[in-house]
């Protein structure tokens, strides 16, 4: 790995003893915090396979003495969430139906916008860009009533399509920002040469820009997918019951507090809701980090 870089070695000038002590201290810190960060994940994973009586007896933080897939089965098929007893599978599919199109559309438009705003600048394009990125900072609450009105007018309340529209429009600022900042670093001479050779707007986009784009497109897709999948406010306001995406429907688990808590089923349901972004993170973590650091470090 990149560990071998010739960077700062803080204890280069200290003695061997101090060096070892410092190293041990560093690893103690790392391990303690790793335990803190992993505890909740471990707890839900283990409890999703335990039996309820055992959880009731030994509590949530305990080594499993039983193993079954009952919790997963019920969470997927027939657990009662918010009044209906059909498990979370419908909500899971809603989330897929919402997240995939919204991610693809907003990323595609963002790439095109970024290409135009970096390589086909015109009078006022910088102002336009600055203004489009304002959308990144808007709090969701300010857009709630207008969205409710618009979705009601065009008949997309309580529908996955409505949420696709909302997330696509809101995502545009992000995707445009990411792509534009990436394309700005592609040398203009490349574009000029292509234009002299007679290539037009689309040809340059397909033949030069897109082949260079995978790094930024992966970052954008990961970012959009996790963001839209995990979004809660719009899901809970604009849809209800069976139409809800899974993140919105999971809240029913924490708010129907009076009954006996089926921690086994609830753990499985929570994991089902968390799994797609987690998988994306574990497989594309490198790009996820890159997406994070891109904006802040220049």
């Amino acid at each position, binding site marked *: 790995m990149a560990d071998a870089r010739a960077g700062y070695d803080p204890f280069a000038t*200290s003695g061997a003893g101090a060096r070892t002590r410092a190293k041990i201290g560093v690893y103690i810190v790392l391990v303690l915090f790793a335990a803190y960060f992993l505890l909740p994940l471990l707890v839900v994973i283990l409890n999703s396979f335990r039996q309820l009586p055992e959880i009731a007896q030994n509590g949530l933080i305990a080594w499993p003495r039983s193993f079954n897939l009952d919790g997963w089965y019920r969470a997927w098929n027939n657990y009662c969430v918010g009044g209906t007893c059909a498990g979370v599978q419908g909500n899971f599919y809603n989330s897929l139906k919402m997240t995939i199109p919204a991610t693809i559309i907003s990323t595609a438009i963002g790439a095109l916008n970024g290409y135009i705003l970096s390589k086909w600048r015109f009078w006022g394009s910088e102002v336009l860009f600055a203004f489009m990125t304002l*959308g990144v900072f808007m709090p969701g609450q300010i857009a709630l*009533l*207008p969205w409710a009105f618009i979705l009601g007018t065009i008949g997309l309340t309580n529908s996955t399509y409505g949420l696709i529209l909302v997330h696509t*429009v809101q995502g545009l600022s992000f995707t445009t920002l990411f792509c534009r900042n990436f394309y700005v670093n592609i040398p203009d001479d490349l574009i000029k040469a292509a234009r002299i050779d007679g290539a037009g707007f689309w040809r340059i986009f397909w033949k030069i820009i897109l082949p260079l784009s995978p790094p930024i497109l992966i970052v954008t897709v990961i970012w959009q997918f996790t963001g839209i999948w995990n979004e809660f406010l719009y899901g809970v306001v604009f849809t209800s019951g069976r139409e809800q995406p899974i993140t919105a429907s999971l809240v029913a688990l924490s708010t129907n507090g009076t009954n006996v808590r089926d921690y086994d089923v609830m753990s499985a349901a929570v994991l089902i809701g968390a799994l797609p972004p*987690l998988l994306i993170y574990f497989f594309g973590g490198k790009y996820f980090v890159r997406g*994070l650091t891109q904006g802040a470090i220049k």
Partner: protein
Amino acid sequence: MASIAQDHIIAPPRPFSERLGSFLPQFLLVPSFIASFFYVFIFTAWTLYISLSNSTLLPAYKYAGFVQYVNLWKNARWNIAFSNLFLFSSLYVLGALLIGLLLAIAIDQRVRFESTWRTIYLYPLAVSFVVTGTVWSWLYSPTSGIEFFMHGLGWSSFQFSWITSRDFAIYLVVITAIWQSSGFAMALLLAGLRSVDQDLVKAAQIDGAGVFRTYWRIILPSIRPIFIAVIVVLLQFAIKTFDLVVTLTQGGPGVSTTMPANYVYDLMFQRGQIAQGAAAAVMILSALACVLVPYALWQTWRARREAAHG
């Protein structure tokens, strides 16, 4: 003069389609422009206008002045929410920054399995606040979580019931939010630590500066812009905090952990007072502006200064 006239004669008039084609880029931006314009300006203006109306359950467009804002600031729950925002933001930003820095420095000590540590600390960011809040609320619950676990270990007098305490529940929201965001701070700060000019650091080392001195005097000051960027992003998260509170405490016990965003939601969709909800939403936007406008100005100033000094 002659050549211009000649050009005029020789160059054939461009066909209409070609002239249209030269506007293609601008033309393609129009839909995005309209969408963003609506989203940023029209929506804000709309909510602002509703906050100045006497709307209750449905929007009414009769101007009513600032009465909603007056009522908002008279409301005890809103005042709790707003003071919670200050308490929460300061502790959360400080906590996430300190833990993030500690982890970044630890990882920067040429440790083994670097990418494994990074993955572990950063994964909470990929998980939704809903999931985080739900799971932590189970762990904080005295009857099944940490307190129960400690009793099981034999420490039967151990008490950990902050979740049911009006005074302490807010700190659990803080701790949970720190759990979610420290990895973010760590990732950015680590990238910053690695961008520091190594010659500078080595020079300090040769001059005999110790570890703490090197970090405190040389390395950390040179990544000050990254600290500020992290603080700004974390403050934004703090101001927008909503789902975490919903799932962790439902704003309770009582109203003790309500945040401004929760107040907006309750007023608009539970109590049918959309005008006052809109007023609260405008206050959230103002709070964000208080953070972002100075930051944007500072960034611009810095860019200008850098350009001036080459």
